[in-house]
């Protein structure tokens, strides 16, 4: 287990470094600097400004400075928000995004596993077709279409829920963002669960369990789910990445003060440090979560480590 853990951590670090490096050099290559403007400054003053921000150093030195700063959690100042560093933006936005994302993931797992399991147990029944049909819809209709449509129906026409905003984190404001964020994932989880449960229910150990005379509920909950949920667990890594990507759009649509909104605004305003900082932060998050999921998977399914 230890060797497996170390090996996985060993491959996570170069990945992260790779991302930071690419992001840094892309920013260097991009046309236009932060101090380009209409009015020309005297060259001496421009040189002073560049020196003050260490932009006159060779690129590799700037790169190592940037790396060291990141390790201290310092992503530099924003080009757009006055008095805000990128780190400030991330620390203010993250709790909000985290709350949405976690709720969406939990919702996706519970609803998805439940629907998928029932569909598998009642294979080819009306319920099965209904779940799979809905899942297809959830996958084919993108969240940036679903979100405005839901807002139109439940916010504008029915006025059950607020159309947008955060309202200081009141539950009513969170319902639609969480549901739209979770829908595609519910669909994937349900499909995965159904597929693997159908396979598991036909395997020999389930027949043995039934032959022992266990009642069907125990067979499903104690025996089948254990094996049947493995693919769902390995999907959690990609799912978090999807949720994080989705949150960018959802936060922009519902005007929620999370990281995603800062990111989109940063991208539209060419606020390079914000965009880079958020990308690196998201990458760190995704890689860490992937690592955790892999370790859990290795723990649950000992066959993985041998390979």
């Amino acid at each position, binding site marked *: 287990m230890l060797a497996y853990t170390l090996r996985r951590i060993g*491959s*996570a670090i*170069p*990945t992260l470094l*790779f*991302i930071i490096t*690419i*992001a840094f050099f*892309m*920013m260097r*290559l*991009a*046309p236009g600097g932060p101090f380009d403007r209409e009015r020309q400054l005297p060259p001496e003053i421009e040189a002073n400004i560049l020196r003050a921000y260490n932009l006159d150093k060779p690129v590799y030195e700037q790169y190592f400075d940037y790396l060291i700063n990141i390790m201290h959690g310092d992503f530099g100042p924003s080009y757009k928000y006055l008095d805000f560093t990128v780190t400030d933006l991330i620390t203010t936005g993250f709790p909000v995004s985290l709350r949405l994302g976690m709720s969406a993931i939990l919702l996706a797992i519970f609803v998805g596993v439940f629907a998928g399991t029932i569909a598998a147990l009642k294979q080819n029944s009306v319920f099965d077709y209904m779940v799979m049909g809905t899942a*297809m819809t959830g*996958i*084919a*209709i*993108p969240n*940036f*279409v679903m*979100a*405005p*449509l839901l*807002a*139109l129906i439940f916010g*504008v026409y029915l006025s059950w829920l607020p*159309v947008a905003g955060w309202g200081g984190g009141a539950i009513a404001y969170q319902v639609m963002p969480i549901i739209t964020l979770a829908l595609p994932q519910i669909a994937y989880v349900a499909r995965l669960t159904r597929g693997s449960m159908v396979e598991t229910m036909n395997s020999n150990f389930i027949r043995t369990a039934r032959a022992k005379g266990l009642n069907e509920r125990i067979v499903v909950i104690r025996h089948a789910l254990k094996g049947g949920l493995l693919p769902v667990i390995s999907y959690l*890594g990609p799912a978090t*990445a999807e949720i*994080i*990507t989705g949150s*960018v*759009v959802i936060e*922009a*649509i519902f005007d929620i003060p999370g990281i995603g909104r800062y990111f*989109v605004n940063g*991208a*539209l305003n*060419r606020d*390079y440090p914000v*965009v*880079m900082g*958020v*990308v690196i932060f*998201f*990458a760190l998050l*995704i*890689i860490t979560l*992937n690592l955790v999921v892999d370790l859990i998977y290795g723990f649950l399914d000992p066959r993985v480590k041998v390979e």
Partner: protein
Amino acid sequence: MVPEDAQIIKGRSLWQDARRRLFHNKAAVVSMILLGTIVILAIFAPYLSPWAYDDPDWGYDFPGPPNFELHHWFGTDGNGRDLFVRTLFGARVSLLVGILATFVSLLIGVTYGATAGYLGGRTDNIMMRIVDVLYSLPFMFFVILLMVFFGRNIFLIFIALGAVQWLTMARIVRGQTISIKKKEFIEAAHAVGVSNWKIIFRHIIPNVLGPVIVYMTLTIPQVILTESFLSFLGLGIQEPLTSWGVLISEGAKQMESSPWLLIFPAVFLAITLFCFNFIGDGLRDALDPKDR
């Protein structure tokens, strides 16, 4: 020569079999018809309406609801431009991006996967390790970085999206290649001294086409979706050109007062995504019957 009256027993090839199975799949057939209609509408878009995609109709509301007398079948947008024509021009861009980017991903993925699978051993190991590492990257954000740093160029979008999508293709092709390369006809090619590259391109790639085509039809909707996502955020296609993502984004902003701006492009996008998914599923079942 075979005599005219002889009963010729024709063997059915894999492809004929597949076609027969595909045409028995109702969802896939309906999807192909719908998708074909959308493609034809998109191609002939300029001839189908008296309005241009980038000129406002000064004699009508900004935005105006659907009006059949003025031939604004889907209404007009906030700048008074005809939404029907704009939706079809959006279809052109979205479909073009989908197909071209998928083609880019196909080129990279098939070459990479076939090479890794065919060469095997340490090369394969390293190449697939790289794919594993790339898999865990949040690629969407890289595409956004590219767009932010280098401007919103439509060709950059093709390449960036294609470069994101090739990983799964590479994995599929590698798996197929490994199972094919032990077959006798490859050995025969070796024996007569055909070079490795020629074997890969002449003999291996044509034989892995089945799964590649299936995955291709599933990649196109993903690319269309990604492009719409970018355009929705304002990072994709730029005015006056348009794509479904741009139209949906504009529609979402005005959905309370003029819902048609959101509904028409959203329906077109959703139908297209559905169709590709159903066709992809249908092709998979048709080409790989043991899967069922």
